[in-house]
């Protein structure tokens, strides 16, 4: 039910932080992380995941396979 940020790819540009409609993204130890409990994959907010759309490095914000896909209530 969530996206995650590949830490080794992240440039710490912070662009995703401001775009996230769920305030699920924050800086932690010099890199940005997504709180899987808050992430809704932008479903119900936007057509596409905002972190993916704004990230300057491709394949950095990706679906976290450790969680099932988000199901809107």
């Amino acid at each position: 039910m969530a996206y995650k940020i590949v830490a080794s790819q992240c440039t710490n540009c912070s662009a995703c932080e401001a775009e996230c409609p769920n305030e699920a993204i924050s800086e932690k130890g010099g890199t940005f992380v997504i709180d899987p409990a808050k992430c809704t994959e932008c479903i119900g907010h936007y057509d596409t995941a905002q972190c993916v759309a704004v990230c300057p490095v491709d394949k950095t914000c990706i679906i976290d396979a450790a969680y099932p896909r988000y199901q809107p209530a």
Partner: protein
Amino acid sequence: MESTAHHEAVTSESVDMDAIMQQVAEHKGCGTSSGSGKSSCGSSAGESELPPEIWEKVKNHPCYSEEAHHHFARMHVAVAPACNIQCNYCNRKYDCANESRPGVVSERLTPEQAAKKVVAVASTIPQMTVLGIAGPGDPLANPAKTFKTFELISQMAPDIKLCLSTNGLALPEHIDTIAKYNVDHVTITINMVDPEVGAKIYPWIFYKHKRIEGIEAARILSEHQLRGLEMLTERGILCKVNSVMIPGVNDQHLVEVNKAVKSRGAFLHNIMPLISAPEHGTVFGLTGQRGPSAQELKALQDSCEGEMNMMRHCRQCRADAVGLLGEDRSAEFTTDKIMDMEVNYDLEARKAYQAVVEQERQAKVEAKNEELAALADETSDIKVLAAVATKGSGLINEHFGHAKEFQIYELSAAGSKFVGHRRVDLYCQGGFGDDTALETVIRAINDCHAVFVAKIGGCPKNDLLKAGIEPVDEFAHEFIEKSAISWFKTYLEKVKSGEIQHFTRGDAEIRQGALIADEERKVCDGV
């Protein structure tokens, strides 16, 4: 076109001084009006050529006045890391403390850290007059951080001019805030006015919560850039337009861009060479897109100059640069060091220091004019380039082997004119890794007839002479332009008397690869 007519006039048989000065002035675009009725005269224009209110804005701004850049310093604070577009010449993952290009920084700052840094630098470098926010992303994609920084600085250091540099996508929506914080200089990077061209430079933009690609992205970006430019000039905010020259992609098109921005009231146009090397990891670096040669860049700048004034002294500096344009003192002001600094912001002391710098600037202009008068009867159509090793203040005051860059002046019957600069730092890889420092310098100034230095050793002297470049150290610690004109007069006399023959020089290289640290520079013995 107008500019061609001026070239012809300069080379005609009998030329008197007034006519030359008039042509030089017209050639620079002085006396012409842009759409907003503002003079478009900028980079090399002096006090006499500009309306007083414009002169007040640019006289101590190193980026808006070529003359000021020899004397006054600027700094950037890296408070704006996020970006809203992707450019094929930018790679945000690149990180090298010694690299100097836009978009590269060593550390990001909070607005509070940035304000503290500005006050610390302003107290240490009293000729630092300008604070810019230029990224490393886009300032207007980080509006809260950007405007908070401006607010703090305007309270703590009210005499410092505020600038920002943007890609323009978010410009229209922030115009009123920009005006509210008294940001009086804004630079917009405009690489195209044709979306077909833009699609080759910008893979995507992030706009209204969507990633938009291709021609549609370029169309939206271009529309916002031009509308933003119009809105700024309507509000009396001085605008510079930066364009990256990408051979085969937008080089010829930049003439159209030049017309479009002039008609919308831009004050100054800065055409910069693409910096592109595989090790930068940019799209253009990886696809082998080359940057322009020195001659190609100058030809494009010259062709636009009849239309409006061109900036040629841009150093394409980092988003955290500190100091005069040719130097970078950012390592003296890391966050750790700033937080330990006891700072006393002394406005009066800064004013007093700047008054001395202003006298120095005027002395330089007078010296040049004096020497220029002696060229009055000169009718030769010979034009040569000369390289100068300088540490600033408009003086020939740097040793050949210590120079990290050379300033380039064009000398002709019309006098001397600053036309650019060449970095000569060594390269990590790619570039000319196997060359000695001297070979790198010769490639960088290969289009010059002479190089003016404060001092030079015997070994590089001979190699320069072999390469056809005359090393000149007789004007050590004297004013650059006065000395260059004096040397040029002698050069013309020697050509006339048949003592030497005038040849046209070849092209020169603009640095492309990544840079390496000072300690690793191999300097020729005895320099």
